[in-house]
């Protein structure tokens, strides 16, 4: 299964529900396009829900990092929600876990943007 993305608005926060695999090719480019669209629409509070993401490779990690820096450089904030154990392990191994603001609970994550 490749990646699926669905964006919904919760107050002024754009929540992107991601499911499937974020890997080189379709998966990572779909994520990049989705974040680019949100930025183009001036959405500056973005929460990536990764709870249904089964697999991320180094290209997917690269897209997360690029998204994070692009949003931050535009004055916005990108946060992560619901990491699976494997994704969490991957971010810890690559020392990126502390770079991102990671949340377990959506309501808490939404409030943290205030």
């Amino acid at each position, binding site marked *: 299964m490749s990646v699926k993305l669905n964006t919904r608005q919760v107050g002024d926060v754009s929540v992107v529900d991601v499911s499937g695999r974020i*890997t*080189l*090719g379709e998966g990572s480019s779909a994520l990049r396009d989705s974040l680019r669209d949100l930025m183009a629409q001036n959405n500056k509070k973005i929460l990536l829900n990764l709870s249904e993401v089964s*697999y991320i*490779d*180094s*290209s997917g*990690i*690269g*897209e997360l*990092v*690029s998204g*994070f*820096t692009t949003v931050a450089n535009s004055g916005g904030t990108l946060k992560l929600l619901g990491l699976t154990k*494997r994704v969490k392990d*991957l971010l810890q*191994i*690559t*020392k*990126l876990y502390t*770079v991102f603001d990671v949340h377990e609970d959506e309501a808490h994550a939404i409030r943290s943007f205030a």
Partner: protein
Amino acid sequence: MDTTSQTLLDQDYPSTLESVDEAEAAILQAAASVGFDEDEQHRIGMSVRECMVNAVVHGNRYNRNKIVHVGVSRAGEQFTIRVVDQGEGFEFVEVPNPLEEDNLLKHSGRGLFLMGAFMDDVKVRKATPEGTEVTLVKNVPPLQ
């Protein structure tokens, strides 16, 4: 200890992203057959994916006239994967450490690091007459 080498996979793949998926699936099957659990299969699969992406994208540069050779064998306690491309090759020492502060937020450069984190041994060398050969080794778990 039985050190007889058993070939589990010996396959040439075209330089496409589909080959990455195919090689990963084939090696996952081989890893399961020798007794690796799901977490170890995931680590092996991910290492193979990173290795195949390097071979297809950076080594052979998607050139459909070039192939990536993948060999998988088991000898004693060692499960060994060899991935050989036909690219120009590179020096292992040239790869920057992705954990250094200056590199932490870079888009790419984590593939080899992840292979090293997930496998018991990783060797990279220039192949003859051309290309890069990456050897990934994982120790097979003892029978329960």
